[in-house]
């Protein structure tokens, strides 16, 4: 097999942002969180990603502010490095190399890390050297046998002691005495510790437990005489605890997705912020106590203003347990569409790596309860123009029969979102196996075909508007069943429309049937036993006369529809066959021995254009071609198939991967270097439009300020010193005065250039100076 060096598989987009506790900057303007192999800096007001701190080569496992400089941040990663960043500018300051992989990070005056392999808490003294790369050798173990979860370790009273919990043990280590106390107050049951928080002013430690209780521990300086009180509101495990900076309130969150605020010392008073969307995994408070943030299990960070109002939501790609809808591309927004929150579809922009919105499909209150069967979105399909969206939701109870709903959504231009048009309850008697829209963009009628395990496929068509008269309210057109088809009682597994919408292919087990969608005549049957048809695809563009099918007996067949005969067939165990709508190319994923191979080919010839062995480990469960915004101009034959569209795929471990060419990566790196952003304003499309203009404006403003005050000029002197009653008319003076304010162009440019040179020369000496400089500049614009 030929190795294609310049195409490689990369992670792009959709990384987890709820993996570790986020950090809020001192001025509450930024929120930093670990996201895959980088640290992302979000604006807490606009929810936009301001910077991405790239550099780690492993997963980032912890982010913390540097106590001595609040504009710098430490991050640690599984690659064995701790990095110090200047996050307002997005500049890497220091790199420390370390053996082993760090799992988390907590900071006092010195840095303290948890070692991964041994689950040991280690203190690292950072040597004060100006070098970029520092090898830290000075390690000292503080605690052993700690949990891998960083929320089980906390510093109390400004770093006097350290508290750690693991399973049923709690350990408190006093730095001054260099002594630790161990408590094992419970014998077992559901009292396992889950998280810990220390009061910032008082000698009090709060712990969360598996049974939903919160315990406040006092008097722990002696081994025997400790006391504790219990708070109970959560019905299942408390996942995160946090004290506000002044210690007046305790925040707790759990699977109920309710943020509970307890008053310290008045524990029966509590406030709730319910319906935060998903189970809370982390709770943090900004250093000034103005903002709270909660991380949620659905890859979301919510920013809350003083426990009453949700002010911002930073949402990443939601990855549930399984993606049943598969990967789809919204033809209108080019967003990736897949299952999101329970009962929702998410629209994720791949270009901007941002979740656009969630579409509520089920429209029911989500009740979290173990063992409760929820409605789930299992199928979704877009029509070619993006005007219609069809979704299927189902709920299977153990005793009752399957509940199915087919919903059709129309795109509303005014609200720019999908509006429910028709709900068909129980469209089929059994699970729907496949669903597709007629692909022809210019046809008058839109047809949806759904195939089900009950042995039928149904065609749904948009009916004419109901006969309306003046007395009735207007009802728009709605969808209704047009045709029910079956073939010898076999179960249809897949269906596919041809590119021009003139043919429908339905795979009934071993037989492929071809139908005419206008008259619903059975045109022909194609079969290639043995083996059930798994995937069906019509060729595109110049190959539209071919129909490809793969079956579960390791065969791929290509039929010529003009002659209704087999063109070619080959032996491949294809698990996924998909077609690129922008070109003739087709991609086939073959699963072999725990890894997946990819073949890209044209239907007209059974010869791969591109193939790669072992694309990823595990099965590829879904894949999709997404159209590119800007076409690539690659002339190499092997990478030409990536010119018009990108191939994204999802593995069984829920990793979203894509193929990237060398040229593309270089382009991306170049663009990220170019991107210099004013840190006070988030990068929004609006900013990109107006920001440049403002920059120029800002420069002018500064130069005007730097010019010698015009009072020295003769005209001004005359104007100010002459008594008013002897002055000529103001209209006469005006033009003269205005002229005196003008400065010659050459003079200004020289001054500005000089100023920027100065700035560049001392940029690496002190970054906080630069920050002040930027603030000055914003002040000027505001004043103007």
């Amino acid at each position, binding site marked *: 097999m030929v190795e294609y060096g310049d195409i490689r598989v990369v992670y792009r987009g959709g990384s987890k942002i709820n993996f570790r506790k986020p950090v809020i900057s001192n001025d509450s303007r930024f929120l930093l969180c670990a996201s895959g192999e980088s640290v992302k800096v979000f604006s807490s007001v606009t929810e936009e990603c301001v910077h991405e701190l790239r550099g780690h080569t492993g997963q980032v496992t912890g982010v913390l502010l540097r106590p001595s400089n609040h504009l710098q941040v430490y991050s640690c990663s599984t690659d064995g490095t701790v990095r110090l960043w200047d996050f307002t500018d997005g500049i890497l300051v220091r790199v420390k190399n370390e053996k082993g992989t760090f799992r988390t990070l907590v900071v006092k005056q010195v840095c303290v890390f948890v070692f991964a392999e041994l689950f040991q808490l280690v203190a690292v003294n950072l040597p004060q050297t100006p070098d970029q790369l520092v090898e830290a050798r000075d390690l000292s173990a503080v605690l052993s046998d700690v949990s891998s979860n960083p929320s089980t370790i906390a510093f109390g009273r400004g770093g006097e002691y350290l508290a750690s919990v693991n399973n049923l043990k709690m350990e408190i280590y006093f730095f001054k005495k260099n002594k630790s106390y161990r408590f094992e107050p419970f014998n077992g049951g559901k009292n396992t510790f889950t998280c810990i928080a220390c009061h910032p002013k008082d000698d009090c430690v709060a712990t969360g437990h598996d049974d939903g209780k919160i315990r406040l521990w006092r008097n722990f300086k002696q081994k025997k005489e400790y006391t504790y009180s219990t708070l109970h509101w959560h019905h299942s495990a408390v996942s995160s605890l946090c004290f506000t900076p002044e210690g007046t309130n305790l925040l707790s969150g759990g699977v109920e997705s309710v943020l509970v605020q307890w008053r310290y010392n008045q524990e029966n008073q509590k406030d709730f912020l319910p*319906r*935060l*969307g998903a189970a809370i995994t982390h709770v943090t408070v900004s250093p000034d106590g103005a903002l709270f943030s909660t991380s949620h299990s659905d890859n979301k960070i*919510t920013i809350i203003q003083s426990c009453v109002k*949700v002010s911002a939501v930073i949402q990443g790609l939601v990855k549930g347990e399984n993606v049943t809808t598969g990967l789809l591309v919204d033809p209108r927004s080019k967003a990736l569409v897949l299952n999101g929150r329970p009962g929702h579809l998410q629209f994720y922009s791949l270009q901007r790596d941002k979740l656009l919105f969630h579409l*509520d499909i089920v*429209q*029911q*209150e989500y*009740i979290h*309860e173990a*063992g*409760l*069967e929820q*409605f789930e979105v299992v199928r979704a399909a877009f029509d070619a123009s993006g005007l219609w969206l069809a979704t299927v939701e189902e*709920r299977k109870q153990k005793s*009752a*029969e399957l509940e199915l709903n087919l919903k059709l959504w129309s795109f509303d231009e005014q609200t720019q979102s999908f509006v429910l048009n028709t*709900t068909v*309850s129980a469209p089929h008697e059994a699970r729907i196996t496949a669903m597709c829209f007629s692909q022809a963009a210019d046809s008058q009628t839109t047809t949806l075909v759904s195939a089900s395990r009950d042995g*039928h496929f149904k065609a749904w068509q948009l009916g004419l508007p109901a*006969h309306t*008269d*003046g*007395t*009735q309210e207007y009802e728009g057109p709605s969808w209704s*069943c047009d*045709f*029910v*088809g*079956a*073939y*010898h*009682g076999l179960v249809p597994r897949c269906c596919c429309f041809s590119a021009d919408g003139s043919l429908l292919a339905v795979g009934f087990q071993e037989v492929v049937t071809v139908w005419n969608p206008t008259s619903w005549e*059975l045109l022909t049957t194609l079969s290639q036993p043995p083996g059930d048809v798994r995937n069906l695809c019509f060729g595109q563009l110049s190959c539209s006369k071919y129909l490809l099918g793969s079956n579960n007996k390791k065969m791929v067949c290509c039929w010529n529809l003009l002659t209704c005969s087999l063109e070619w067939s080959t032996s491949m165990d294809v698990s996924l066959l998909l077609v690129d709508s922008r070109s003739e190319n087709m991609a086939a994923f073959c699963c072999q021995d725990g890894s997946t191979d990819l073949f890209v080919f044209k239907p007209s010839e059974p010869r791969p254009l591109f193939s790669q062995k072992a694309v990823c480990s595990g099965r590829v469960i879904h894949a999709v071609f997404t159209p590119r915004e800007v076409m690539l101009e690659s002339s190499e034959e092997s990478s030409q198939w990536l010119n018009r569209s990108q191939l994204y795929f999802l593995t069984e471990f829920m990793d979203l991967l894509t193929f990237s060419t060398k040229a593309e990566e270089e382009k991306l790196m170049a663009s990220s270097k170019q991107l210099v952003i004013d840190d006070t304003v988030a990068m929004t499309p609006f900013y990109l439009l107006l920001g440049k203009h403002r920059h120029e404006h800002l420069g002018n403003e500064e130069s005007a300020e730097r010019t010698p005050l015009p009072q020295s000029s003769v005209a001004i002197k005359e104007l100010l010193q002459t008594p008013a009653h002897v002055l000529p008319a103001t209209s006469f003076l005006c033009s003269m005065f205005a002229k005196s304010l003008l400065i010659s162009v050459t003079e200004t440019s020289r001054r500005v250039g000089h100023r920027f040179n100065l700035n560049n020369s001392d940029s690496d000496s002190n970054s906080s100076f630069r920050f002040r400089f930027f603030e000055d500049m914003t002040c000027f614009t505001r004043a103007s």
Partner: protein
Amino acid sequence: MASFKPTQIPDLPKLGEKITEDTLYWKNYKAPVQIKEFGAVSNIDFSPVSPHNFAVTAFTRIHIYGPFSQEPVKTFTRFKDTAYCGRFRSDGQLLVAGCEDSVVRLYDVGGKAALRMYKGHTKAVHVADFTTGRYQILTASDDYTCRLWDIPNAVELTAYQEHTDYVRCGVTSKLNRDLFITGSYDHTLRVFDSRTEKSVMTMDHGQPVESLLLYPSEGLLVSAGGRYVKVWDLLKGGQPLVSLKNHHKTVTCLALNSSGQRLLSASLDRHVKVYNTTNYKVVHNFDYAAAILSLGLAPDDESIVVGMTNSILSIKHRKNLEEPKETSKPRRRPSYRVFMKGKNFVPKQDDYFVSKPARQHLAKYDKQLKRFNVSKALDTALEAWLRRKKPEVTVAVIKELDRRGTLKNALAGRDEEQLSRLLCFVIGNFFDTRFTPVLATTAEIVLDIYQCVIGQSAVIDRHLIHLQKLLEKEIYYQKDLMEILGMLDTMFAFSLLRKESVDQIMFKSKMIKYEPKQPFIVKLTTN
């Protein structure tokens, strides 16, 4: 942030006939006034002049009724035998009628005795009408002839002997005084011009013709005979335009409404059907108690008069639209000032805004659901008003409780009264196909929970026995329906055998199976 999502009340498809403008229009009549006549009512004719009295020909009498009277204002009784076809002249002054004894009589509407008698026919005269010239009478008789008479002299002007069977209907043109059309039991319609000696046009209806109707424009002719109503285009030389077969017995009478947009046909099958004259689809249907012989529509559709074989005359008057408006007083509302209070306040530059969050309005049951009070939520959903007027809401709440897995908790712990209310609801809506799946699980859970106390309360036992009987009945119906489906399957398979391949038979017959069964079931259970 996400707020509480209220329970979804599904927009269920409405069963039964669709409400259209036509149904609203034709249902807007009062309950019929029924008058017993002496025999079968064979003809109804409205006077063309106000106050639009109508002549009702029944047995040996002709009664003239006023528009609102229930007693005849005038009666003509001087017939020796059964009278036929009492019709007004265009000025409403004269009335002509045929008779079984072959004599045609002319009356003054004010007088009593016949003004003239026209003798010449040899058999019963079933058709008599004035021509547009006002001085001639057209008659047609069972002696196969039709004749024109001069009114003042009582002289026969012309006789046409072209029909070969009884002539039972005829109509004169309103635009041309020489033109008239007759229909006969020999299946033909003939157009005559009194200036020529022969018929000018002949059309074959195919059935004995019972009734004729000319459109106001006189371009189209409608004929009724047998089960068919046919429309002919006279301007195209009598070309058939449409043939309607919506009745299952002989159509006896035709009428047009005042606007000419709707055609009415009455039949011996006890129905009056209303057609749209643009597409000839049935838009409405009236049911009557007996076979209908005659039908009349007052000008402006003020009343529909129907005469039946059981000698009942049924008069339906139009509802007056102004009446209900006067009774309901407009509710006093708060003044404009109250609503506008503070709305037009313009904030100053440095004012601090205190925004008030918009409160979400929730229905009573949703409020209880939000608090997880499942039993109370079910109670509120079972309130009398909701239960009767909007069963879909109650069912939606039960479904929501089931989805939350708390239906069992909500149903448990109820006393006799509450349980009987619940069972009443279940029984009342069990066979509404839209609700059956939900209510079946409800009934199952109720039986599970309360099986230990069955027999302790007479009321509950009665309900349960009732439910059981209903279920048995329903199962019986369903079985019957399945049998019918099986029969249909074989019939379709047989009819398709010659044309199409075996594959297609299979799915065609499947298609029939997927025709919605609901309307069938509902009809059967209500009968």
